[in-house]
């Protein structure tokens, strides 16, 4: 039994920025479960599209009740393939991601299409679809529900990670987790500056491509 899941969101960045950030979204504060990242294939086609394959290794976090049913020697790592096509002429990025191993336990496939938003200016529409299935007889339902819940949680993390990468790219203050730390640090710095007699020199914010 396959569970199908789809949604659509708008990202408040241009398509060019989103696609550039797509390659730079690891590591980020929300991706601690992603241990390694490698481009293992890349090709520019005759019609100027970029085909890429990325191999990711993630930790496999199973709830206790699920660990029970699997051999203790089973690899704690999940290998994931992310194939993608960047079409700069039609301004679309299509990605297809699926796990290479642990497929008996659970197979998660996701297709994402990033295109210029038709509704919001300078925004990118993301259409996501996912297919989640488990072939373990008798345990399919709870495992699929778990898989779906983890997938949704990972999707949230993935979006936060992409937004993090986008804000770094655009030279803004890194958002979310770092924002409060930065505010505190900058407040403390201002305080320290006021109490000293020496002249202060404002530092130019670093620019990141």
């Amino acid at each position, binding site marked *: 039994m396959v569970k199908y899941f789809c949604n659509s969101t708008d990202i408040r960045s241009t398509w060019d920025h989103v696609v550039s950030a797509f390659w730079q979204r690891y590591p980020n504060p929300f991706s601690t479960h992603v241990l390694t990242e490698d481009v293992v294939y890349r090709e520019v086609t005759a019609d100027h599209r970029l085909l890429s*394959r990325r191999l990711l290794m993630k930790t496999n976090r199973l709830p206790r009740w699920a660990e029970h049913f699997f051999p203790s020697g089973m690899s704690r790592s999940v290998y994931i393939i992310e194939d993608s096509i960047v079409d700069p002429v039609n301004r679309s990025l299509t990605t297809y991601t699926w796990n290479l191993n642990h497929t008996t336990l659970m197979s998660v496939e996701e297709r994402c299409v990033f295109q210029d938003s038709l509704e919001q200016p300078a925004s990118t529409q993301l259409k996501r679809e996912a297919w989640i299935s488990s072939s373990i007889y008798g345990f399919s339902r709870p495992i699929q529900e778990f898989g779906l819940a983890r997938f949704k949680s990972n999707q949230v993390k993935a979006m936060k990670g992409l937004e993090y990468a986008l804000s770094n790219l655009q030279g803004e203050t890194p958002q979310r987790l770092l924002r409060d730390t930065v505010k505190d640090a900058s407040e403390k710095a201002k305080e320290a500056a006021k109490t000293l007699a020496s002249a202060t020199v404002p530092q130019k914010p670093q620019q990141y491509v």
Partner: protein
Amino acid sequence: LFYLYYLFIYFSMNSVGEACTDLKREYDQCFNRWFAEKFLKGDRNGDPCTETFRKYQRCVQKAIKDKDIPIDGVEFMGPNKDKPES
């Protein structure tokens, strides 16, 4: 003494091949620059990263074999073939 505008700690990902991480980072830097400045802007004047990519691939493909990662022969976007158009 100076104002702190923001704090940015730069981290990098590791390669699945421990020995390949430096080569990976070198390639990634080259690619990210080429991608944003040339590829997306329609500049088709060739890819300055082929050499660094080759070195990186030599290393990482060996690591993939050594670790028995079952990626060989997996068709590009294979599972997408049986899915309806979105």
